[in-house]
């Protein structure tokens, strides 16, 4: 069965409608500085959400990304506070993120535990390590070069936006055109059949969680640089924002269906809603209600489309 037009482009249509409505409600909304601002604001969540898309495509979940962001941010800042260069700090941060993700993946596959449980444990443990390392206090003293990552521009485009774009492009092509990508979809679409097809399911899962960790590390670096300090409580709730973007973007929580392009639109929708509600002076309390309603609505739609499809194939 071919997907109907709305099933395929529904999220994009919703996004454009949202922009249209906001452009009438607020004259500032469509201005270039505001749009760049929106994209920069979503870049943090966007990078995480792209990694989360991979994880959810395999039928898993990673609740620990927020804590991973905090821990890598703290270590990266700490290294610089102890006089190390920005370059080394960044490399260590990325490796540390990948390492944490790898641990998640290994426990999930070798230990045979549900990703929910394993990453819930990592969420708590990594947050604890962050608090231990920082002693509960933010770390300042970042190097100038490092600040460029979060605050710099290339031409008129903020560096975080460029990073997000790169991550998006690479992950899009990897998922769509490589053996790895194909096998990620297969593992999520039907784990048993993928094993019967000779796919090394465990290896793929470990790789996916490692990539997630790597991107969490990257997010930690961007966030720390942007804020100019590493706060031990940074990143709380980031996992939920990332999952929200993935779900709004049409990736199935059951695995095997979805794309990072959808996730980007999901992140944009969240960003535009936040931005629009801010421009309209709606209190942040209400913003949360609106976001919550949108998540459930998106999953309802996903479910409805799936049931319809199932009925046809039966």
């Amino acid at each position, binding site marked *: 069965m071919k997907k109907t037009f709305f099933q395929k482009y529904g999220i994009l249509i919703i996004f454009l409608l949202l922009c249209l409505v906001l452009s009438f409600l607020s004259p500032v909304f469509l201005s270039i500085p505001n749009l760049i601002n929106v994209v920069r604001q979503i870049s943090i969540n966007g990078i995480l959400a792209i990694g989360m898309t991979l994880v959810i495509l395999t039928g898993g979940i990673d609740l620990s990304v927020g804590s991973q962001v905090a821990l890598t941010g703290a270590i990266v800042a700490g290294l610089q506070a102890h006089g190390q260069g920005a370059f080394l700090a960044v490399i260590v941060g990325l490796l540390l993120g990948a390492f944490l993700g790898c641990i998640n993946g290994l426990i999930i596959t070798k230990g045979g535990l549900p990703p929910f449980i394993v990453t819930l444990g990592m969420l708590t443990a990594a947050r604890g390590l962050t608090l231990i390392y920082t002693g509960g206090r933010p770390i300042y003293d970042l190097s100038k070069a490092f600040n460029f990552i979060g605050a710099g521009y290339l031409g008129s485009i903020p560096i975080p936006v460029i990073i997000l774009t790169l991550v998006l492009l690479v992950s899009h092509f990897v998922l769509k055109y490589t053996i790895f990508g194909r096998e990620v979809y297969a593992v999520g679409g039907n784990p048993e059949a993928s094993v019967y*097809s000779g796919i090394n399911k465990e290896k793929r899962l470990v790789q996916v969680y490692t990539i997630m960790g790597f991107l969490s590390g990257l997010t930690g670096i961007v966030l720390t640089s942007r804020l100019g300090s590493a706060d031990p409580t940074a990143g709380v709730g980031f996992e939920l924002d990332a999952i929200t973007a993935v779900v709004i973007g049409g990736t199935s929580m059951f695995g095997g269906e979805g794309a990072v392009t959808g996730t980007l639109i999901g992140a944009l929708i969240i960003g535009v809603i936040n931005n629009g509600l801010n421009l309209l002076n709606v209190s942040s309390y209400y913003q949360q209600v609106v976001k919550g309603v949108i998540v459930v609505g998106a999953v309802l739609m996903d479910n409805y489309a799936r049931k319809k499809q199932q009925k046809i194939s039966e």
Partner: protein
Amino acid sequence: MASDYLLEMEGVSKRFSGVKALNNVEFRVKSGEVHALIGENGAGKSTLIKILSGIHKMDTGTICFNGSKVIIQSSRHAQQLGIATVHQELNLFPALSVSENIFIGRLPRKKSGIVDWHLLKKETEKLFSKLGIEIDPTTTVESLGVAEKQLVEIARALSQGAKLVIMDEPTSSLSQGEAERLFKIITALKANGITFIYVTHKLEELFQIADRITVFRDGCYIKTKEIADCSYQELVELMVGRELTSLFPKVQVELGEPVFKVNNLSRNKEFENVSFSIRRGEILGISGLVGAGRTELARCLFGVTLPTSGEIYKNEKQLTIKKPLDAIKQGICLVPEDRKNQGLVLKMSVQKNISLSILSMFRKTFGFIDGHKESATVQDAVAQLKIKTPSVEQLVGNLSGGNQQKVVFAKEFLSDPQLLILDEPTRGVDVGAKAEIHRLIGNFVKKGGSVLMISSELPEIMGMSDRILVMSKGKIVKEFQRSEATQEKILEYAL
């Protein structure tokens, strides 16, 4: 006359995605009898039972139960009518007590709303003494044996006013002693006017327990007889009694040297000391009942599970197979029993499914897939196997069963296997696609491949195989040459 029958089904048909599971069958059960329903796998027994228990709805036909015409809407409706089914997998709450299980959903309550445990126990004891069951109502169900659990299920059904109890393979996991006890209770309940439909593969039991039998074959009603008028031989003949048709064209192939050898392969509780060898160009059939360990053997050979002991050789060289990928690399491929769960990713396209195990053939730098080569290879396979699909981009879940199965075959053939293990290769496939799949298998061995074919369909096994192994209770109990095998002989060893 009508009052003689508790249940009368007439003209009942049921199709599943084009395949006729039941074709205009009739089935009549007298009040107070034990009526056995027998037939090969795929004869339509379980479909009929599922219609009676409200899980499936029939397409056409009438059901007359207890004197009035009914259309069974749901399992709840079946229960209300007084039709209870005791399944192979029991529906009990293991951590709750026997009496709670029996009265779950309608536990007696005191005025305060608290469960009246005393009354509950008394009610259960009353029920048990009426039924002649001796189980302590306060023990938890998990501490009971399988037979006792079945009794609890029967008791629950009867306490809800069931008039007709359907037993689906009740003795498949019972010891001889347990089975005897179950028979005693069934006999006693029968004397109390309860009617039973009894489904089993174990024909010898029928002479002990059944009053009448009805035979189904290929979804059709064959015959109903008094058990007293039947011999064992006759039952078997009724079950399998069709002629071997030209549906199974045996391709004449010059057999080569033995390629694969399996030596004393065992796996805990699944199969033991399985030894055989397969020659180039040979089709080795494995026959046996569901649960004989055939599928488990196939999964183990393919590396899905690991054997506890024994070896597998290819050309006299011992193989180490720890996962399916190892098997595929050694030229062993599997067409699994359950294509929807093990063979295919239904959410993916025909192309992506076919190329899934051979992606490394299309590898370019950085692990990118050579899309042109992939698409050309897949198009080729689709044409060769005559897979009917609007395009290779079609989701595999939207194809018919036969075409889905051909997709699985295409996928396995492309890995260029030397040994193809087939587990029920034509299950749920219509006759036309079946013949084509058999043609594919024939072509494969003609080109020098070897096939290990598991099938519950005797005509298929006998029509296709060069040799036939019969498995029973995890062991190979008999080997037949093609010329010496008859359906009766095979069944005799399989049962």
